[in-house]
């Protein structure tokens, strides 16, 4: 087991290195100059050149990369080009905000999605099932800004039940979390439904004439366990995706999350912030996937024997 963890840690480091180098290269291949952004309407070729020099952008790429990697290893993620503040200080509160939004919406999506998915599987082929299928599709087809806006207008504004936007209280979390959950639930609903249909097919039919609730409950539990594997995978993927921040929802609800910060940094060509955010995000993504992989073994004891 220890060897397994050690090997995963090594893989984590190698992956992070690859990601850092890739993002570094990609950012510098994209047209657009941070110095031009700073210079703005007062740009002259001389000023832009001098700003570039001051930012260290005139050094050869390999040198820039080496310096950056060296700094990262000592925990220095550099300073934001746009604000001048250290990248780590910038990222931390935004990450907390994103984490809150992520966890809240996942909670809603998983609980709600599982319940609805079970209902769909139990009534498969009938009206309720089709209604749920169509409804879940509507959830993903609807652009999230539209969902958010509808919630803001009807619940926040006209019914005056909740605050519209911002980050000032726990209540401010509700509408954005709901909006994100609406986007994530459909997948969970369908996977739970698909997985349940498998087992319910055989066992449920056989126990259709079984006496009492208890046997049906046993069947349900058995069926749900089969659904756990794909659902946990999706939760892992969603967690990964959401931890990077959901730009649209954050913009609409003025939620100070990582997604918005990353977008703003990309649009200002604020390389240190972009690189730092991707690094942070990657660490969590890889760790999450690692945790999910471990989960498989916990969920289904038989998997523990799978050759690793």
């Amino acid at each position: 087991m220890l060897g397994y963890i050690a090997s995963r840690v090594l893989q984590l480091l190698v992956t992070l290195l690859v990601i850092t180098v890739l993002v570094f290269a990609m950012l510098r291949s994209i047209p657009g100059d941070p110095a031009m952004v700073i210079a703005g309407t007062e740009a002259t070729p001389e000023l832009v050149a001098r700003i570039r020099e001051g930012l260290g952008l005139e050094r050869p790429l390999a040198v820039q990369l080496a310096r950056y990697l060296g700094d990262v290893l000592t925990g220095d993620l550099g300073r934001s080009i746009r604000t001048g503040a250290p990248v780590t200080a910038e990222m931390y509160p935004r990450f907390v905000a994103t984490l809150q939004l992520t966890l809240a919406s996942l909670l809603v999506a998983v609980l709600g999605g599982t319940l609805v998915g079970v209902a769909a599987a139990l009534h498969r082929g009938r009206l309720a099932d089709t209604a749920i299928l169509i409804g879940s599709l509507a959830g993903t087809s609807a652009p999230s800004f539209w969902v958010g806006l509808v919630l803001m207008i009807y619940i926040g504004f006209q019914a005056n039940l909740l605050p519209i936007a911002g980050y000032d209280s726990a209540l401010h979390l509700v509408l954005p979390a709901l909006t994100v959950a609406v986007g994530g639930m459909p997948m969970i609903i369908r996977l739970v439904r698909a997985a349940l249909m498998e087992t319910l097919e055989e066992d449920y039919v056989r126990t259709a004439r079984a006496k009492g609730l208890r046997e049906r409950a046993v069947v349900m539990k058995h069926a749900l366990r089969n659904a756990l594997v794909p659902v946990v995978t999706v939760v892992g993927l969603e967690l990964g995706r959401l931890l990077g921040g959901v730009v649209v929802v954050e913009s609409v609800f003025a939620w100070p999350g990582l997604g918005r910060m990353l977008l703003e940094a990309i649009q200002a060509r604020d390389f240190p912030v972009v690189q730092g955010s991707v690094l942070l995000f990657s660490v969590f993504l890889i760790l999450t996937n690692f945790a999910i992989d471990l989960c498989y073994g916990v969920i289904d004891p038989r998997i523990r024997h799978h050759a690793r």
Partner: protein
Amino acid sequence: MPARVGPLGLVLHSAAGGIGSVLVAVTLLAVTIGPWLSSHEADGFDMAGAFQPSSARHWLGTDQMGRDLLVRIMAGGRLSLLVGLGTVLLGIGVGVPLGLVSGGAGGKLDAVIMRGVDILLAIPALIVALAVIAVIGPGALNITLAIGLRSIPIYARIVRAEVIGLTARDFIQGARALGARPGRILWRHLLPNLAGSVVAISGLRMATGILTAASLTFLGLGVPAGEAEWGAMINEAKQYIRVHSHLVTYPGVAIMLSVLGFNLVGDALQDAINPRIRARIRSTGTN
């Protein structure tokens, strides 16, 4: 004795499959006529006639440049479906085999593939998109590639998870013990069980693909500005949502209905592939 039920019959027998087929047919029809109409009407620029509500002449009204909304929706379907289906096919085509290999082989190969997947997921879609356009330029195919790259890891991880779960189960072990070749195990046992999950998420990925394409269009990637495409139409109309919400709602409904159609057909197909259900239909004539 009930007659032998072929695959088409299996699809059509359920209400869902029937509705789905109709929707797909309507979508494909509208989308094929669309380009024929688009040469004049979708570009029917008329500033004076902008933002008109539904009328006899314009069934869904006009948009911000005075163009007929219904015609633009029909014309836009072609590109949207291309992108939507393209990203799903790319995801399935590359993601499923990767997941199968990764889950089936285990060990070092699994680790390498999964770390590659991690890398694909970790780099933000926006950066990937900007890099793609910088290197190979804009275009509908390139945007499909950029978004498809995000789909691949999702399919790969889900399929891998299923494979891990399934191979541990008895019937696979049993087949192995009986000396069945891996190819046969794959075809008869793994794939039908996988189909459920894959189909389940494909419909959703299609819708996501179209919408993601829309959000990336604003970068100048993908369809040329002004050309009809559902996601782009929604994006451009976003700012009018409180005054002329129909400009956002109708293309959104178009996305939903077409994705729904493909999805329902896919669900029915999944039932058709599932051996147990197929057997039951054949024996009882109903599902």
